[in-house]
């Protein structure tokens, strides 16, 4: 039993905004004071400290094929970022694992870096179905954190075939089968149809463009998968990466896509990369106002930002054509992936420079989105790790949001061209600790559909982060005083003190088993592996937790 007493608690799900409250923990859960024998409890006096639920990341690339391709092609990302093994206890002898890497860190280091920053749950942003086993095997080596993965479906041949034939019920059953077979958590859509077209050196640029060989459109793929998401009652909503990512003037198509989803629940990821103005071949401008306006007007839409942080990183996405273009632009090394009948992908390193007008505008767009989207419950903190920058930069972004002077100081350092006519100086908004708690845990946990996370109410998982209340918010959020996972102290003063397994959350929606026969034929006709070897079994997850669907 643990009591965290006298701390100022920020628990937005329960409306607690910086009130002094005592938090009691028993058997890994938050309990009411009545259930605790105080004389037997370990008491942590958090007087003057800030208590929040553990951080919950709605979108980050931490495991699977692309991340591992990044690790393999970037030994330079490891150099200077070595994390030696450290002794946690003498008897029995327990050590942390050593690891390397910054933007594409090895598995154990990824977990330690997140936990030391006060995060306890992280969702992998994009796993190709065929690579799900790889993703889960890496999850097994990402301790402490609870994890789950979104499964890429926006360019899936089986689904596109069903849509062409107007067999959306069949597509629904297939998606249900696929989520169970991959032990995935939700539906991810990346550049619907565009990744398929890239296999013919083409792309889609409009919601009504044709997908080669399937006679379907990005719009129909989005509509169908959104309908399926509802039908299956998945805990999360469709997780969407739209069209024309990274291109000048893409804010218009992004706004159009957002509007196309009006009345439906949807999450748009890394909106920063989708909110650019200007035309091709002309200087880029921020169009954060355009997309933020649509988001503000559509209460069913949530977004995460994908903030850019200046410095070296590795970009990776299932959006193959994007990575090809970035490689052609920078001359940096490039990895391209064709995942059989499902999706594609690419990886290429990237350096975001303050002096580069395009990069500086990207940085501006992210901050402007944070400040323009009014409801913090609908905009979440991400860097689309590692695409906009490593997640270890979150504390820096938090300080940018909470401290206008700090933000403006950084603004003065960016490209003059980007500063011209920029909106950012006019935005005086500063986030409060309560709002930070929403965009980094309460809001994200709720939107992912993990009701037992992101809050400190009775019955919630005892994932708790205690920060020293420091004026420098970057230092404060970089090194929490205490991090508890399932009621166990796992990090103290920004250092791991205990390693334990985390959970993998997944869904397994019901479906008409008649579909299996057809899926078997599809896999046997089109894949390099047999049907029997495709599905990830429950036994392969040492600590899986099935989350119920509510059709």
């Amino acid at each position, binding site marked *: 039993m643990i009591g965290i007493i006298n701390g100022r608690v920020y628990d937005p799900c329960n409306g607690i905004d910086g009130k002094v409250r005592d938090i009691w923990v028993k058997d890994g859960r938050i309990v009411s004071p009545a259930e605790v024998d105080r004389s037997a409890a370990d008491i942590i006096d958090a007087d003057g400290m800030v208590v929040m639920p553990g951080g919950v990341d709605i979108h980050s690339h931490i495991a699977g094929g692309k991340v591992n391709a990044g690790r393999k*092609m970037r030994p*330079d*990302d490891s*150099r200077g970022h070595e994390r030696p093994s450290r002794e946690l206890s003498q008897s029995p002898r327990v050590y942390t694992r050593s690891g390397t890497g910054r933007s594409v860190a090895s598995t154990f280091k990824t977990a330690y870096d997140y936990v030391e920053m006060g995060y306890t749950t992280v969702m992998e942003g994009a796993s190709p179905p065929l690579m799900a086993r790889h993703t889960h095997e890496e999850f097994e080596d990402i301790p402490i954190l609870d994890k789950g993965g979104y499964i890429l479906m926006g360019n899936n041949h089986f689904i596109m075939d069903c849509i062409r034939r107007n067999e959306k019920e069949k597509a629904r059953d297939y998606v249900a089968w696929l989520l169970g077979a991959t032990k995935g958590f939700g539906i991810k859509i990346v550049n619907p149809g565009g990744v398929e077209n890239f296999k013919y050196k083409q792309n889609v640029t409009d919601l009504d463009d044709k997908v080669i060989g399937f006679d379907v459109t990005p719009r129909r793929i989005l509509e169908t998968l959104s309908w399926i998401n509802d039908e299956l009652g998945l805990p999360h909503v469709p997780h969407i990466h739209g069209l024309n990512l990274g291109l000048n003037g893409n804010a218009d198509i992004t706004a159009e896509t957002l509007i196309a989803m009006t009345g439906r629940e949807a999450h748009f990821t890394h909106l920063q990369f989708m909110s650019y103005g200007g035309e091709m071949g002309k200087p880029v401008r921020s169009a954060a106002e355009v997309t933020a306006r649509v988001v503000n007007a559509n209460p069913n839409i949530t977004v995460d930002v994908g903030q850019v942080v200046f410095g070296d990183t590795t970009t990776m996405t299932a959006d193959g054509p994007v990575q090809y273009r970035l490689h052609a632009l920078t001359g940096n090394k490039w990895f391209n992936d064709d995942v059989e009948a499902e999706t594609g992908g690419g990886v290429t390193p990237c350096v975001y420079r303050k002096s580069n007008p395009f990069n500086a505008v990207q940085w501006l767009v992210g901050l402007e989105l944070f400040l323009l989207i009014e409801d913090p419950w609908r905009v979440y903190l991400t860097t689309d790790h590692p695409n906009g920058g490593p997640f270890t930069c979150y504390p820096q972004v938090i300080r940018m949001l909470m401290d206008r002077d700090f933000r403006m100081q950084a603004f003065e350092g960016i490209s003059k061209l980007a500063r011209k006519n920029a909106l950012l100086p006019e935005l005086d908004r500063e986030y409060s600790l309560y709002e930070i708690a929403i965009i980094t845990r309460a809001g994200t946990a709720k939107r992912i559909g993990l009701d037992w996370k992101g809050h400190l109410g009775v019955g919630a998982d005892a994932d708790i982060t205690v920060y020293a209340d420091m004026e420098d918010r970057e230092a404060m959020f970089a090194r929490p005083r205490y991090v508890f996972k399932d009621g166990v102290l796992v990090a103290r003063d920004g250092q791991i003190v205990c390693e334990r397994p985390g959970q993998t959350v997944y869904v397994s929606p019901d479906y008409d088993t008649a579909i299996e026969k057809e899926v078997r034929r599809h896999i046997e006709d089109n894949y390099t592996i047999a049907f029997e070897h495709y599905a990830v079994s429950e036994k392969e997850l040492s600590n899986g937790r099935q989350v119920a669907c509510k059709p």
Partner: protein
Amino acid sequence: MGSQLNSEKTTAVSINDDGVTLRLKAPITLPVEAESICPDCFVGCQQSEILALPVFCGRRRKMLGDIFSVSGEASDRITVEGDLTHFKRIGQGMSRGRLTLRGDGGMHIGAYMKGGEICVEGNTRDWTGAHMTGGMIRIRGNAGHFTGAAYPGEIRGVNRGTIIVHGDVGNETGARMRRGLIVVEGHTGECTGAGMIAGSVFVFGKLGARAGAGNKRGSIVALGETAPMLPTYQYQCRAQFGFLGVYLRQIRKWGIAVSDDLLKGSFRRFSGDVTALNKGEILIHD
């Protein structure tokens, strides 16, 4: 690590001009991580502190005094005696002084070196002077592969500084160098100057196969024989290049025999690599 050790000290010790000599007590075949053998570390250290500097022998942490007898203190002039083939990272990141090895040295000697001078009287192994940004390294014997090269995955490597090898070198000498000069008196292995961004490599012996693959703006000067060249280099002209005289006279001062014939000679210029920027060149002495 060198600079880190240095910065922890408040240099109250006065500099001793006689230098520090390390003598290997017994041969070591385990790999030794020895970045503490560096003028920047030694300059502020009394002898007792030098004896206590850390090295990793295999997986065990030891002190310099465990494996060397030490004479002298507080100097940026270091002489090391013994077979140091298995000692890695000697002089890594050094910025000043002089480091002399009376014997063979191991991998990564003078990697990330910023200034000062390293002289190895024997041979060295791979990665000599990798990523150096200043200073001079002189190897009397042969050097291994990746001499003055960039580490795996890095876009650019050596950025200023000079490496002189009196013997032969292995493959990928000067790979992805950005600036600087490498002079090889003997032969080179394959892919000399692979992916060079700029800088110069002079080879007096035989220039190995596939030299200058992916070279953007670098100059490779072949003063002796050459292996067959890549088809991505195009012959352009035969000429006498004034700037070569400047280089060669300096190289002569560094103790490499440069005949008057070479000084006055004409060169065939090949430009390439056409698959890269095509602003690089291989100059071959007639």
